């Protein structure tokens, strides 16, 4: 007998994972870019 699977559970899981990964990637890339550019400016001022 085939088990009944709620397809929406899988759709929501995939969207949650994909959106979280994309947002985390963008946030990390932006934060790391700002950190490195601040560090360059500080090195220039020293």
């Amino acid at each position, binding site marked *: 007998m085939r088990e009944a699977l709620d397809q929406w559970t*899988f759709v929501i899981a*995939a*969207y949650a*994972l994909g959106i979280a990964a*994309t947002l985390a*990637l963008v946030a990390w*890339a932006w934060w790391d870019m700002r950190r490195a550019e601040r560090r*360059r400016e500080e*090195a*220039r001022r020293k």
Partner: protein
Amino acid sequence: MHGFANPKRFLSLVRWLTPTMLASGLVLAAVALAWGLWFVPPDRLMGETVRILFLHVPAAWLGMGGWAAIAVASAAFLVWRHPLAALAARAAAVPGMVFTAVCLATGSIWGRPTWGTWWVWDGRLTSMLVLLFLYFGYLALAQAVAREGGSSRIPAIFGLVGAINIPIINRSVVWWNSLHQPPSITVGKSAIDPQFLAPLLVAVLGFSLVFGGVVLARMRALLGDIQADARLRRKAGEAA
């Protein structure tokens, strides 16, 4: 093209291009995902799980596109020896790895209700998993070279050799028996109904812009660290 390889000119261009690409990409991707989630009807065969493809397909293309970018930038570095090309290759690695992981995870989530299994060791899935391991290897190698001060040619050669996997992924569903469907979109042709194709193309455009914005942000981060280190070394040398 060579003019933009000047770090000063490159920075003046990407200062506005990075936030523009990231913001427009996020908006377009959000529109495409909302469109796919609420305004597209369920597919005749896949049912509601067809919605997962608006994430899975762009992630798969960008996973492969990321390595193609590494290979092109590595070739440019090996030919012209311009350090910005090596930075571009390194910058594409993390977003490429993340999108490959998203492709594998969403594909697995899609496979459970559709194929009845989370994973099969067929050509497409296995070659995509190999791509993820290639990203791990490339990142470890590039980081080791940056830390230990080795030759940037080593990760560049690895990036070029690893590109052999890209046509293997692309042709895997043609060469071997696979649970994965054959290509739905080829040059100038599509087997996808327009009501699914339109949000898919918007999603591909949106995620591609996000990918491009992240690559530029990574290049700026890597360049900022290199310039800060060089300046601090020069000042330490002057003080000694």
